[in-house]
Each structure stands twice: as C-alpha cells, then as structure tokens.
C-alpha cells in the first residue's frame, strides 16, 4: 500500500515514457523486501514470482533465477513434484544454473514428505 500511493503520484506525472528492460521484473524486488520485513507476506512474494513468469513467458522475458525461485516456493510448501518441474525449467532456460539445479532436484527427490524451510536448501551442501 505504501508503494502504491507513491507509484500513483510518480506514474501520473511521468506517464508514457517507460524505458525498455530486457526482462519482466514486476513486483519481484518489492515483494521480496516486503517478505523480509514481514514473513507473513510470503504468499505475496509467491504471487509476484508467478506473475513475473506468466507475464514474462508471453514475450520470452522471464528473468534468470525466477523459475528456481518459484520451485523453491513450491518446495517450501511441500510440493516437491512441482518444485522439480520448475528446477528443470530453470535448468533448460539457463545452462549456468545446471550445477545448482541438479543439487536442488536431487534434494527435492529425496524428500517425499512436506519439507520445511529449514531442510529445503540442503541441496547445496558440499
């Protein structure tokens, strides 16, 4: 809410001159900060990631890391199947992510039960 008022004032005065970015970012940065401020805002962060992917896919503008972020959100909710699917999409889109995603996929495959946030990242252990 605090952002939207500000955005409204700015957008009103500066309408019609949006510089082009390479990727769709949407509310990803703002929602991440809001989530770090208040952990109960995680669902909004979740939605921001989904929105970026949905909008970005229309024009091949999904930023690096976003499928992985979505996968991690799925994993933290215990949906390992969906998480693995999204980690594979990150891997297919960005070869630089293969090593990290392979670890994340192996980890998600091992854990069949609901995974808590605390155990979700074990995939990076050396």
């Amino acid at each position: 809410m605090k952002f939207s008022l500000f955005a409204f004032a700015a957008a009103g005065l500066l309408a019609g001159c949006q510089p082009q970015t390479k990727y769709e970012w949407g509310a990803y940065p703002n929602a991440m900060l809001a989530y770090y401020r208040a952990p109960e805002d995680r669902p909004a962060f979740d939605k921001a990631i989904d929105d970026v992917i949905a909008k970005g896919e229309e024009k091949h503008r999904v930023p690096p890391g976003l499928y992985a972020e979505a996968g991690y959100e799925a994993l933290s909710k215990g949906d390992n199947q969906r998480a693995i699917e999204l980690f594979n999409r990150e891997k297919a889109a960005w070869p630089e992510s293969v090593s990290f995603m392979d670890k994340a996929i192996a980890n998600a495959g091992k854990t069949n039960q609901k995974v808590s946030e605390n155990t979700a990242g074990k995939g990076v252990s050396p």
Partner: protein
Amino acid sequence: MKLLQLLMSFATLGMLAGCAQNVTKYDYTALREANPRSILIVPVVNKTTQVEAADTFLATLASPIAEKGYYVFPINMVKHSMEDDGLGDADMVANAPAQRLAGLFGADAVLYAEVNHWEASYALISTTTTVSIRYVLKSGKSGATLWDNNVTITYSPQASGGNPIAALIADAIIAAIERAHPSYIPLANQANAVAFLDQNKGLLNGPYSTKEH
C-alpha cells in the same frame, strides 16, 4: 514508481557524464580474462544503523546485473540455502572465500556488497538520504577481484516536472509518505544504476547482453 527510479538513475548518469572528462577508465583486464557468465549475489553486509539497508540492496541487485547480461542465481533461494548451510550471517559470508561460495552453486563469480554509510535528514517537503555502498565482484575460480566500485549517492524522492505547484504538492505528499513508511528501493535502484552502468567504472556487459559496452 519504476519509471521514476529509472528516470532519476538516468538523470544521475547524465550528471556524471557531464563531469567525466578526467575520470580514468576502470582496468577491466581481470574481468575480461575471467569472462564470467554467472554471478552469485551473496547477502549484503550492513555497517549502518539502518536495519533495512542490507535487505533493500539484496532485493534490488538481481535486476541490474541480469539486465547487464549475466545469469543471476535466484536471490531468495540462495539466501535460504546459505542459511541452511550455516552461512546465514552476512559478515561471515563476506569473509568466506569466493571459491567456496561459488563452488556451492556452480557460479563463475561472486558479488559482495557492503553498505557503509546511511544518513537521512527529514524536512517538510523533502527527505534526503545519503548512502555509500561498495560492490566487489570476485572470481569463483581464483578469488581475485574482477571488478569493484564505491558509490555515494544523495537521494531525495521528488515528483519533479510538469506544473511546479502540482510538483510541490506531490513532493510534500511523497515526503510525508517517506517519513511514515520510508521506501528505500528507489534509492537502492539509483545506487545500483550508478555503480553498474557508469561508462567508465560500470560492470562490463555479460553474455546475454545484446548491446556492446
């Protein structure tokens, strides 16, 4: 809001460009040789009393670096994964060898950022914040510094342009909002833009960039 941030970034760059005659160009030898494709952004170190400084910068770093043409590892997933690996403390991570951090994720390079100064002064129709931040990019293979930049910016949210009276009212509204709920994301975006886009000291373009540096 994004428009405003970007416009202000461009305005700042314009000012920098105007007085850049005797600025020496950064020595990009090490960065060119390492030629990284992927950058791991690790938690930001906060040396100030502004509690949100680190998270504000962490949340804003992915876009400028990805827009430069690099693969950027997923910020939130990396943050949690590092916490699970006993690397939750930003100060500790800052002292960890880049090779170790890069090895965990398969990253070519690691970006460290440190907020060193943060001072806000509040007034009726403007709120001015001065921030200093240091960025260091290190090789994931050798640990050597590939690129670094120190940026100090003074940020004042303004709804400039158009009707001066409307702008003044808008400025007062923005100042009021800033006092009640300060939003430092535009400030962080501006600092990042100055750091990464500067034509003499900015970060070189990465493999996914379509533009020449």
